[in-house]
């Protein structure tokens, strides 16, 4: 997935955790934790804690009471759990929606734990997963959660023409996923899921899906009683199973959550209910909201803003104000990809050699708080990442070496090679970035041809792999949907990625396809090191210029207790937040 966008979109779900030595997700696995070093990205190495039970471990210093105000400029698009995919709705949804599994953030690292069900057991042929529902779970209105409600939620997710924004892995992996159209059109019968007794959920797959337990943490798996499904109106008043429930909601403007009296902390190993309420407010100016949080006058002391920290406010973060900075991990890598079909390997190496990483980083308004220079495909917070010595020209740092690049072009007989890309010509920032890149490439003997387009045209232009450009097509980055190379390499580098419009490098290599599939079919403990090796191999093909790994950097008021980041979303971890007084 691509980068965190302001304005209208939020970053897609990002999951970062480690799985080490794990034969099946039902095994307990205690990996070592890398230790969160504030804003520095560290390699996640913990895994699954299949025996975790509620209540969740108390956060040191926490206390109950008060109302936390959360602000942002961009508004979440929906709170229908089936339709949630963006990270803002997803993180807020964790306050309301319990799912079969969930991530408990321990020392800044996510560990998959049982939530409504256990973490699942898989059949020998890897095509059937069984999950056991915890007893005595209730909705906000006191009615019990039934296993049929979990099954219904899964079926509902197939109504993709109604819930167009939600994830679609179930269509690819679940049995009948290509045929079933959801309960509104296709009726109740789906071979993808069944219930047995009062507590057993069985998921049937069309092909192995080793990472299913991680996928089951998505909000679309939260239970929904069929009788209470109000379809397109469900988003206005979804039923809560989590510690908070909706008191009032004005779409696009405000959301007020209050305590859910029927949430039992003893059944929940991942969440807390410290604050009495959460007030979400959207639409104000991001810089003004961040400044207000930093000033912490009156009620602003209880406020956290989750827009990306504006560079203009960084100089204020000294002394006491430093403690108002919330840092954490994300699991996104941002790149400029190169079309391997249109640019020979030697020329791609020359582009990398000439690339002005430092000025590019600065011109884009990035700083060390919000981004870390990249040199790999996988970010450090995803298992499979390995900090190998960066390949020549792919360190993510430096001013570029135009002389060396020119020599490479001359040796290849490609001096004057045209390098072209689309850029948004309506904002000064994107114009400056394009200009900087063009200057560097021209100095290196290329013929740089940046093509300016209107903002509204950019997406359609950059997603057209047949367009007359050869670098910078989308996606301009990627974030994990779950914590393994399995949510990166098959998506971005197999041949189908070109028709999916989600390709880095436009690779069409049958041998590479097979290599990726072979690794993807391995148990996670065996696949993880192989992803690392594949990462280096594909980077050696010079498919993309690595720019940076995203980081979480947001500001909060002085009365909010120590807030940690949720690396699965790159957002503040709302379920652990509390007020100091």
């Amino acid at each position: 997935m691509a980068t965190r966008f302001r304005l209208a979109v939020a970053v897609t779900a990002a999951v970062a955790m480690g799985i080490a030595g794990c034969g099946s997700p039902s095994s307990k696995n205690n990996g070592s934790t890398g230790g969160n070093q504030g804003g520095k990205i560290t390699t996640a190495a913990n895994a699954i804690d299949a025996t975790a039970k509620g209540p969740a471990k108390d956060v040191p210093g926490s206390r109950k009471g008060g109302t936390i105000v959360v602000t942002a400029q961009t508004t979440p698009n929906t709170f229908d759990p089936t339709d949630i995919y963006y990270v803002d709705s997803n993180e807020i949804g964790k306050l309301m929606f319990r799912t079969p599994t969930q991530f408990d953030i321990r020392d800044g690292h996510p560990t998959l734990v049982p939530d409504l069900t256990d973490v699942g057991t898989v059949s020998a042929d890897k095509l059937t997963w069984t999950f056991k529902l915890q007893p005595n779970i209730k909705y906000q209105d006191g009615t019990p959660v039934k296993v049929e409600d979990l099954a219904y939620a899964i079926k509902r997710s197939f109504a993709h023409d109604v819930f167009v924004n939600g994830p679609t892995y179930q269509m690819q992996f679940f049995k009948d996923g290509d045929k079933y159209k959801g309960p509104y059109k296709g009726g109740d019968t789906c071979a993808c899921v069944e219930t047995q007794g009062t507590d057993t959920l069985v998921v049937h797959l069309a092909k192995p899906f080793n990472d299913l337990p991680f996928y089951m943490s998505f909000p679309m798996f939260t239970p929904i009683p069929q009788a209470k499904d109000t379809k397109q109106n469900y988003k206005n008043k979804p039923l809560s199973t989590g510690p908070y429930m909706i008191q009032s909601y004005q779409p696009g403007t405000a959301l007020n959550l209050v305590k859910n009296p029927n949430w039992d902390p003893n059944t929940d190993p991942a969440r807390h209910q410290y604050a009495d309420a959460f007030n979400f407010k959207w639409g104000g100016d991001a810089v003004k909201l961040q400044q207000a949080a930093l000033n912490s006058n009156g009620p602003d002391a209880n406020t956290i803003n989750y827009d990306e920290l504006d560079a203009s406010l960084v100089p204020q973060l000294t002394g006491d104000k430093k403690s108002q900075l919330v840092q954490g991990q994300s699991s996104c890598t941002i790149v400029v990809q190169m079309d391997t079909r249109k640019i020979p390997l030697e020329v791609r190496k020359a582009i990398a050699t000439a690339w002005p990483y430092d000025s590019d980083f600065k011109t884009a308004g990035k700083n060390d708080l919000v981004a870390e220079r990249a040199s790999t495909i996988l970010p450090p917070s995803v298992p499979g990442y390995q900090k190998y010595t960066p390949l020549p020209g792919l360190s993510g740092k430096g001013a570029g070496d135009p002389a060396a690049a020119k020599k490479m072009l001359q040796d290849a007989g490609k001096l004057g090679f045209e390098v072209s890309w689309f850029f948004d010509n309506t904002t000064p920032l994107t114009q400056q970035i394009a200009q900087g890149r063009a200057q560097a490439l021209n100095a290196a003997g290329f013929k740089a041809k940046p093509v300016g387009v209107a903002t509204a045209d950019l997406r359609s232009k950059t997603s057209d792999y047949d367009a007359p450009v050869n670098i910078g097509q989308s996606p301009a980055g990627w974030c994990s949907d779950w914590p393994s190379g399995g949510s990166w390499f098959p998506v971005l580098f197999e041949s189908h990625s070109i028709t999916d419009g989600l390709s880095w490098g436009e690779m069409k290599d049958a041998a590479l396809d097979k290599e990726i599939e072979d690794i993807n079919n391995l148990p996670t403990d065996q696949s993880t090191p192989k992803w690392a090796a594949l990462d280096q191999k594909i980077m050696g093909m010079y498919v993309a210029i690595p720019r940076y790994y995203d980081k979480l950097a947001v500001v909060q008021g002085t009365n909010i207790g120590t807030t940690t980041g949720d690396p699965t979303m790159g957002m503040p971890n709302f379920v652990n937040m509390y007020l100091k007084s």
Partner: protein
Amino acid sequence: MLLYILKRVASAISVVFVTLVASFALFFLAPTDPAGVICGPRCTPQRLADIRSSLSLDQPPVQQIALYMKGLVVGRDFSNGGITQHCSAPCMGYSYRLGAPVTELLLQAVPVTISIVLGGAIVYFFVGVLTGTIAARHRATPLDRVTVGTSLLVNSIPYFVVALLVALYVVNVVLPGSAWHPFWQNPLAWASGLLGAWLTLGLTNAASYTRYSRASMIEALGQDFVRTARSKGISERRVVYRHGVRAALTPVVTILGLDIAYQLTNALFTESIFGLPGIGVLTLRAFGSYDLPVLLGGVMVGSVVLVLMNLIVDIAYTFLDPRVRLG
């Protein structure tokens, strides 16, 4: 008078209709990508096609506008994925981004903007007229010069600078915090949450009204009827505030009406800076995400407000100045 009003209403409807058609045309002629915005970064061609279909963006623009107009007059049905939703007239559709009925979004936003603007208008009208009248009464004195000088100074500072400074360093320190609370739920909280915006909008605009009122008062106080009133022995206070102000108010009221109309459609800075969810912020957000139904809703509200305020000003004129007749 009644015939005049009817003619103006008919004219207003045609203005709103033309504005809507023009907005629709601009939207489809200009580069826009509402489906792409919703689709987000993880956007496959299939997902994009699904979104376009769900928003009826795959229909011809002429058909889309015809359905929109039909919805305004008689309502319409929206069918998607085996589900049909009826939208009663006046149906302005559903927000592409939020999926919420546009009517509902507007009904939430309009009271906010009206509250901001009317409250601000009360402040700047009364403060401006009072200070302008005082300045006119004490014309060419130090008081007059200070008043005019101060109004010029205030007018020279960009509004958004003043608003930002107030929002960051005065609100929550001296003034109560900015927030929207519907009047019917809690009038005190409503007033308290808007106080910062009212005073900022009011006092910055009062500077202009000081100068309008001063100039108008000076002219009114030089009229024959004022000299006649003085010669009858009426007190100066009564001459100024009973006779002079009434005559001086006429042009000021005209400007007030137009200003209110303008601010109702341009309260964006105030709403954004003070975090108030009015129609300005709603429309700006819709603009950025190519949310056509919300955009059209905002355009419709804006055009109705403008024509209505113009009509109200024209009618008010006849009461303020008996010499004016409508026809």
